[in-house]
């Protein structure tokens, strides 16, 4: 059976003063029904642009997006509408993505209006959605500024579920939430997935979350995937030095961990000046001469894992 979402060599290119910048630089991934895939990366790696491109909100310059076996129209025309209905987006800025002038009730009714879905009882529908995400009826008449961060997040999810989508793209669903309630949002996603067989694509920078929710994952750096595959495998045995660095950068409560930490030097280079060779070599503690010259081809590791590195972790001693 083909995957629910198949992305092949997708590129997003923006024109820029006499040139262009490739924000997403040829990525491929699958999301299957009832499963969760995660895209992990730091600011500016292109995660959000990728999510936007999948929804037709950013221009795709090359590559293909197939949704349920059918190529997704890549323009903002009405042709996209029937498919857009089955593909929902939960925005990163939860309160910012809710119109301040609409009550929660109206926010939840809007998707059906836009897609002209006949609704017998709009009120009942709004209450159904609220209870689906564990919110009380009393919230229906509130406005976004009267909601807490966690509540706004849930309303965003309820709206995303309004049209019973097959695929949900959740952009940083827990960013800015306190630890004591970020579990609520993730548990909710897992419950809805179990009940409806929803495919979920989570975009996040939080590896701890990925460990608990994702079946597959991809690590993004400067618009490319540097490592991707089964999330358990990657998290227990990262092969790309960037993945390893991200994993060890995660300050935990174990003081031992900081001693074996792989510390990166410098910051993410500008997309306007992609480094030659391996694009990670400017920050990589394992980089050698080859890395500054040749782009590492994709290597297939154990299982279905792939990574792009000349000197992957666990292969050669680090820098001589």
């Amino acid at each position, binding site marked *: 059976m083909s995957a629910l979402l198949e992305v092949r060599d997708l590129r997003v290119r923006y024109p820029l003063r006499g040139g262009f910048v490739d924000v997403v630089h040829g990525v491929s991934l699958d999301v299957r029904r009832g499963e969760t895939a995660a895209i992990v990366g730091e600011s500016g790696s292109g995660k959000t642009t990728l999510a936007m491109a999948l929804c037709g909100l950013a221009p795709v310059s090359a590559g293909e997006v197939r949704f349920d076996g059918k190529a997704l129209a890549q323009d903002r025309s009405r042709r996209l509408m029937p498919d857009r209905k089955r593909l929902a987006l939960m925005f990163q800025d939860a309160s910012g993505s809710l119109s301040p002038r609409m009550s929660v009730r109206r926010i939840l009714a809007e998707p059906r209006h836009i897609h002209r879905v006949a609704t017998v009882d709009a009120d009942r529908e709004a209450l159904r959605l609220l209870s689906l995400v564990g919110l009380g009826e009393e919230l229906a008449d509130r406005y976004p500024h009267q909601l807490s961060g966690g509540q706004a997040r849930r309303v965003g999810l309820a709206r995303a579920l309004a049209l019973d989508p097959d695929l949900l793209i959740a952009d940083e669903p827990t960013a800015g939430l306190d630890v*004591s309630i970020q579990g609520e949002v993730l548990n909710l996603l897992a419950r809805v997935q179990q009940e409806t067989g929803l495919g979920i694509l989570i975009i996040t920078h939080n590896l701890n979350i990925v460990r608990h929710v994702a079946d597959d994952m991809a690590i993004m750096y400067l618009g490319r995937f540097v490592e991707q595959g089964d999330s358990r495998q990657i998290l227990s045995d990262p092969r790309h030095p960037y993945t390893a660095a991200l994993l060890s950068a995660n*300050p935990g409560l174990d003081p031992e961990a900081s001693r074996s930490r792989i510390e990166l030097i410098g910051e993410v280079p500008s997309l306007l000046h992609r480094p030659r060779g391996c694009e990670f070599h400017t920050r990589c503690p394992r980089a050698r001469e080859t890395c500054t010259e040749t782009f590492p081809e994709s290597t297939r590791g154990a299982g279905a894992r792939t990574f792009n590195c000349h000197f992957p972790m666990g292969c050669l001693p680090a820098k001589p």
Partner: protein
Amino acid sequence: MSSPVLEIRDLTVTYQAGHGRVPALRDVSLVIPEGSIVGVVGESGCGKSTLISAIIRLLAPNARIAGGEVRFKDRDLLLLSLEEMRSLRGDDISVVFQDPMTSLSPVLTIGRQMADVQHRGAAGRRARQARSRQMLERVGIPDAEAQLRRYPHQLSGGMRQRVAIAMALMAEPSLLIADEPTTALDATLEVQIIRLLQELQRDVGCSILFVSHHLGVIAELCDAVVVMYAGEVVESGATHDVLRNPRHPYTQRLLDCDPARIAERTRVLPVIAGSLPDLENLPGGCIFRERCLQSFARCAAERPVLSGGSHRTACHLPEAAA
């Protein structure tokens, strides 16, 4: 033991809101010994920001300090005149804020802003510029001379935070208050900034009050930690005591919820059910009682006091167990 740089005793701050009064901080006490890094952890609404504003006396106009004292090197900051307070800020007490983009002026060059910070000294223009360059180099900014001519928007987030730290440490303060300085940064940069703060603290010898909601960062950086909930200190002590052996149910639950601490993959993550109490109508008794899984009759009747030796907690449970 040397005398503390900062000692807060029973600080209570109240906001006037609409018809009611919101006691945002209630009897908060904490001590920062000289040369140490003390972390304040807590989630939204715990009073972290009010605490910082109270220390530097920059509270909102509708806030009132209802009681307590804030002793900084044997002077009660709450009794100082505005003039005296102003001469301390940026000189003996500095702050690094969460978002350097909002604490740096977008219309002035880095060099100009760093020179302005030195308005107190008698140094001339050249000397100030040299000092600025030196500070930038010290916080690990490459090509410091050129950066002085640039504007904040031309620097990356990590670089901007380094500039903010350089400016805060320029006057070699005795106390640096860092308000979630790594929250807006990516994980790999977060590590770099923590390292930098550790190094600078050693060099400059200042004490740091480090406010964060990130337990991992606190564990890595701080000598002691103060856990706050809904405007009260619920637990305090040496970092490894509090994080390895938490005594207050809130601290325990908070640690349980951190997905970094859950080794086994799980589809159902723990949460702390319920929400913060309404501060305008305090329920009485223990502030965490309504969300606590172990509460009993006494918790509703009597507010627990922060007690214990070096590892203190505000909870009736240890006594009940004894």
